[in-house]
């Protein structure tokens, strides 16, 4: 029993470790994309269209329907996708933590109103909300990130609120209150640091879902606009050539999956390590 448990833990944490390595590699490749990419991702070369992958050194991952180098597009697309993912995550976490702390710490009417608003937002399927708002605002990297962030903070606020409800009752908070520390300062200096673990876990998992959402809306044409490459809009073009050049669809999708997996594994491992109460596999 103990040995199998250890084996299982090992497997679990090895996955988290894999996740961390994948995330680190992806971040590095996004950061150094201009240096790593063999050529300009927008460079057209109609003489070299649909080159297969792993066939030549000049185009290691082949070329697309316009002769653009797939590896360069993947690297630069990753830059775009990860930027959107990270900015959306920051928006999500800031909004969610703010709402959660205000609702949990202040309680009463504020709590009731904020949480009813959260319930209301959760009645709409996120993709519906996301697509409608994304179609209304002119697409840019900032607007896409904000729209994703502002449609996905609700769960974070619930997690933070639940955490704050417990922290609020502890002695050091009562002590701060008795000492006359202003509520805002208690929230930021006393309560927030003690809710850091679940926020960190949620943040990691939110990067994964934001990258996924960006790829959905870019795939449907309401996200990142060409010629700027993102993994999502690379798939839009690739869909038309699925029967003849499938690798054009396989590669960006694999990149999305790898990224989402990396952040999910990392987040899951962080949850196990930081917050045993939240474990899925008690």
């Amino acid at each position, binding site marked *: *029993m103990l040995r*199998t*448990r250890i*084996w*299982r833990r090992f*497997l679990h944490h090895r*996955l988290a470790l894999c996740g961390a390595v994948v995330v680190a590699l992806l971040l590095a490749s996004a950061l150094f994309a201009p240096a790593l990419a063999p050529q300009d991702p927008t460079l057209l070369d109609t003489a070299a269209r649909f080159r297969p992958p792993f066939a030549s050194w000049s185009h290691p991952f082949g070329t697309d329907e316009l002769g653009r180098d797939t590896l360069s597009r993947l690297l630069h697309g990753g830059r775009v996708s990860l930027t959107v993912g990270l900015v959306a995550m920051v928006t999500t976490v800031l909004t969610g933590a703010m709402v959660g702390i205000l609702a949990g710490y202040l309680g009463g009417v504020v709590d009731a109103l904020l949480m*009813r*608003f959260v*319930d*209301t*937002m*959760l*009645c*709409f*399927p*996120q*993709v*519906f*909300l996301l*697509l*409608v*708002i994304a*179609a*209304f605002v002119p697409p840019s990297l900032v607007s896409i990130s904000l729209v994703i962030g502002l449609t996905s903070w609700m769960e974070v606020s619930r997690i933070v609120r639940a955490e704050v409800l417990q922290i609020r009752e502890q002695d050091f908070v009562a002590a701060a209150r008795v000492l006359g520390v202003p509520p805002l300062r208690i929230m930021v200096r006393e309560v927030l640091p003690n809710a850091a673990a679940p926020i960190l876990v949620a943040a990691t998992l939110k990067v*994964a879902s934001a990258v*996924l959402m960006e*790829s*959905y809306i870019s*795939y*449907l044409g*309401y996200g990142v606009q060409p010629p700027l490459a993102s993994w999502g809009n690379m*798939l839009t073009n*690739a*869909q038309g050539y*699925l*029967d003849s050049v*499938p690798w054009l*669809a*396989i590669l*960006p*999708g694999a990149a*999305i*999956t790898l990224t*989402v*997996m990396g952040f*999910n*594994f990392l987040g*899951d491992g962080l949850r196990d390590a930081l917050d045993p109460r939240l474990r*899925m*596999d*008690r």
Partner: protein
Amino acid sequence: MIGFILRRLLQAVPLLIGVSLIGFGLMHLAPGGPLAVYTLNPTIQAQDIERIRIIFGLDQPVHVQYLNWAAGMFTGHWGNTFFGGRPVLEVILERLPATMLLMGSALSLAMLLGLAIGILGAVRRYGVFDALATTGALFALSFPTFWFGLMAIYVFAIELQWLPSGGMYELGEEGSVISLLRHLVLPACVLALVITATWSRYARSAFLEVIDQDFIRTASAKGVPPARILFRHAFPNAAKPLIALLGVELPFLFSGALVTETIFGWPGMGRLFVDALGMKEYPVLMGMMMFTAFFVIAGNLLADVAIALIDPRIRLS
């Protein structure tokens, strides 16, 4: 019980008000507002737009407009489509059966598989199967549905040619059940993947929670056969969080159906939504948002009632 249902219905009122406020707000946020199709049309004169504004009641104060709009929402007057002028509710309801068929089959498949995987994992906790299943679920949750759909089309429709790549019927075979089933297999399986993963995770933790409790140990000490313990003793107790999950997961199901329907050209509500987005059919978009929100509220309500039916402690507290 009736008291519980009434109380629960009352709790849904603020949700309905909130949902309608957001819906109304979004419609006015749309570029060009509710009259976009007229204001963006260069052949329509300014004085005509003014007349249309008055006909539509858009010259009235905002709160009057909202009340009129909300009253329409609750009495089934959801406005007409910009193109073709058909009632929005009719257009949506026309697409409902296809979506229900897709969501229903994916959900049934996912629940069966997910429950089986979760229960097996919980019974043989930390075993090899359990480790594989929990890791597999994490993998499955990371798959982008639309890419998984594209890959499924590539493998099963293009390479192997076993199944059709999209649509609902073969040309000239409209209404044929066999043609429908053949078209349903791929989208239903693709949509089911992520739901199966979620269900197996929740089923596993729900059963683990129950399996360690005293009454299960008592039953097992009395010599009740394991299968009977599982289905008669553990199942009803583990079912509560799973029924709640059914209600909570509805919005995700709609999101997943939207993505799946676009990939497979399945003529359901998700497809309608994406088409309406492309044509700037704001009344249809808003109608769809409201429809799914109502559906989600009703789903959660039903889930709560079902839980109260199972567990008397909840309806009495």
